[in-house]
């Protein structure tokens, strides 16, 4: 499965939930947290559960963002969406490895309660200064952690920073989170671009995320999906290189050779993995 785009959709909007699989995102995030008013938490939880069981999006990853661990809703959210068969549970405002372990225990107990044997992984959002300081500990805390998303809106609010389209105020946070994720071997997911109508700067922002090494990017508008997907699309010459790498690796394997070179460069496992990732992104 590709991880280029993670599209947030309000968990209390039936029309959008029904359209989730059609919008081009690699992963959809049904949101029970910020998009849903306090008075609609129960209704949205029920709606999202029904959407997962009755109108399960096909061909895309499905995530539910539950309410934070500091709210009275998160356990009920987690039990409902694990029982309904979500692929991932996304938990906001994670600040420590202990909280990550709490999430892991919560998912496990939700699975046991409903008798699910399916794998359910976690996605964490780091969106506070403390969370960022503990990023590597969080990223390494649990085997079921799939990736971490930077939540720049809350983060900049906590920092007293001004959110801008060029994102200079989150440069450190991006790099710090990215490094922690790469060190722990989990996905690094870039923050959404919040200026919905500014598609030109969205493209620049997405290109920058790719340049930094993010594995994917969250988006808050369906109109952003295609442009962000395009940003992650490898250039044709890279695809061509990756295809040649894979062909050379296959040939070496068939001939029983341990190592092979291409254009004077030794092809080893990291090279093959990079080529595989390029071909995955290019869908080639």
């Amino acid at each position, binding site marked *: 499965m590709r991880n280029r785009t993670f599209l947030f959709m309000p968990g209390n909007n039936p029309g959008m939930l*029904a*359209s989730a699989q059609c919008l081009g995102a690699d992963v959809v995030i049904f949101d029970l947290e910020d998009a849903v008013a306090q008075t609609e938490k129960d209704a949205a939880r029920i709606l999202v559960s029904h959407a997962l069981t009755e109108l399960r999006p096909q061909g895309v990853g499905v995530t539910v963002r539950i309410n934070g661990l500091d709210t009275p809703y998160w356990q009920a959210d987690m039990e409902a969406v694990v029982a309904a068969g979500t692929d991932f549970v996304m938990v906001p405002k994670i600040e420590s490895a202990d909280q990550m372990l709490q999430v892991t225990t919560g998912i496990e107990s939700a699975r046991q309660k409903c008798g699910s044997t399916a794998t359910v992984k976690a996605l964490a959002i780091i969106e506070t200064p403390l969370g960022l300081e503990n990023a590597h500990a969080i990223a390494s805390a649990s085997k079921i952690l799939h990736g971490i998303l930077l939540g720049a809106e809350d983060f900049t609010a906590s920092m007293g920073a001004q959110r801008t389209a060029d994102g200079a105020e989150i440069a450190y946070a991006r790099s710090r989170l990215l490094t922690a994720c790469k060190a722990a071997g989990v996905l690094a997911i870039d923050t959404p671009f919040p200026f919905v109508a500014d598609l030109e700067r969205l493209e620049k922002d997405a290109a920058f995320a790719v340049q930094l090494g993010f594995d994917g990017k969250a988006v808050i508008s369906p109109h952003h999906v295609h442009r962000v997907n395009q940003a992650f699309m490898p250039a044709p010459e890279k695809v061509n290189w990756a295809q040649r790498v894979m062909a050379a690796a296959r040939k070496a394997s068939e001939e029983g050779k341990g190592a092979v070179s291409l254009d004077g460069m030794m092809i080893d496992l990291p090279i093959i993995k990079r080529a595989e990732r390029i071909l995955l992104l290019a869908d080639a």
Partner: protein
Amino acid sequence: MKRKYISTIADTLRECGLKDGMTLSFHHHLRNGDHVVNMTMDAVAALGVKGITVACSSLFPVHEHLIGHIKSGVITGLDTDYMSGPLAKAITGGILPTPVMFRSHGGRPRAIGEGSLKIDIAVVAAPAVDAMGNITGTEGPSACGSLGYIIPDTQHAAKVIAVTDHVVEGGLSRISIPHDVVDHVVVVDKIGDPAGIVSGSISLTRDPVALAIARNAQSVIRASGLLQDGFCYQTGAGGASLAASLFLREDMRAMNIHGGFLLGGITKYMVEMLEEGLFDNVFDVQCFDLSSVKSIAQNPRHVEISADTYANPNRKSNCVDFLDAVLLGGTEIDLDFNVNVTTDSNGNIIGGSGGHNDAAAGAKLTIIVAPLVRARLPIVVEKCTTLTTVGSTVDVLVTERGIAVNPARKELADKLRDARLPVCGIEDLHDQAVRMTGKPRPYERGDKVVGTMEYRDGTIVDHIYATK
């Protein structure tokens, strides 16, 4: 010079020999801003004439006024290509003594030319007329651009009346209908309401599902291999169809393609592609917005064409036969790829072919774009409620949840699969839709036939029944 000018519509009709049982023809370029059909039929009623057949290329909500004339027996027959609004609802309810003849935009001039639709008096809503009686649609307070759909009527009707609110002293710079076919001219205060004639600006949809469909549709065109220099294209002004033209534009720029012509109802998005030099010509039977009205008046590459030239299958050639691709909508499409754009799934008349079955028959690649579910009803059905466009002329259905290719076009399906497009069987799309909506209870039709569906070649392919 002004001997053709007569003071009132009633006097002119009398001069033309109006009598019971005649057929009067009209056109729909003034769309929902049209005053001419209603005021002409008021004059007919005032003369005490009954049993008239109104042959109008399309009828809109503004023509609700005709219901009174049907009730009083002034109008006893209708012949049209498209009908929406309260009049259509009344027809579905069985108000008219005879079935409405539904034709296509190409079938109508065919019928006129071969004499199966015989017109006694053609009434032209004329935005501007000169002293000789030449007519144009490009000037005046009610300018609508092309007058393409009434041109065949003026060539075959026994009498032709121009009704105008704008007389030009001296000659016109562009002539849609020449003076030599015009018998009389009547000047009235207003032939229409400009707000209902053309949109100030047709805006592109922001609906992400419609955009997803549009993107898929353009991917189909790209993968088909037809997008080459000389590419000729038609699309509607509906949400997904219009949006697809933007994606087409991006592709043509990126691939450095120079197209042949754009066809059909014209919007500013097509005009922009013409002005950008992406296409040689726009061939226009109908302008949809102010930009296209302005363009047809000024740009020699934006060419007014008649309905004959557009789609009459009996002519030596017609534009639809040169189309590489057309994008069309649909209220229903069935497992045999037949399409309904005439009624909804409850049998209510909500439209008609217009150029639907003409363009589908002519184009090398006919794509139907539609959401899989609309108003909680599946769009893919086992059998269409009403047959408008035959499935053998439809190549692809593009929805937001998959792309179905007519089994007769296996080579096309292979190309789309090679391009990694989400190709599936139309049965799969039907099953998906029914899983979402449940199986709808079939509507119960009444016994009375209220509409006859004529295919573009004159074959009767279906009937519309009154609702219960």
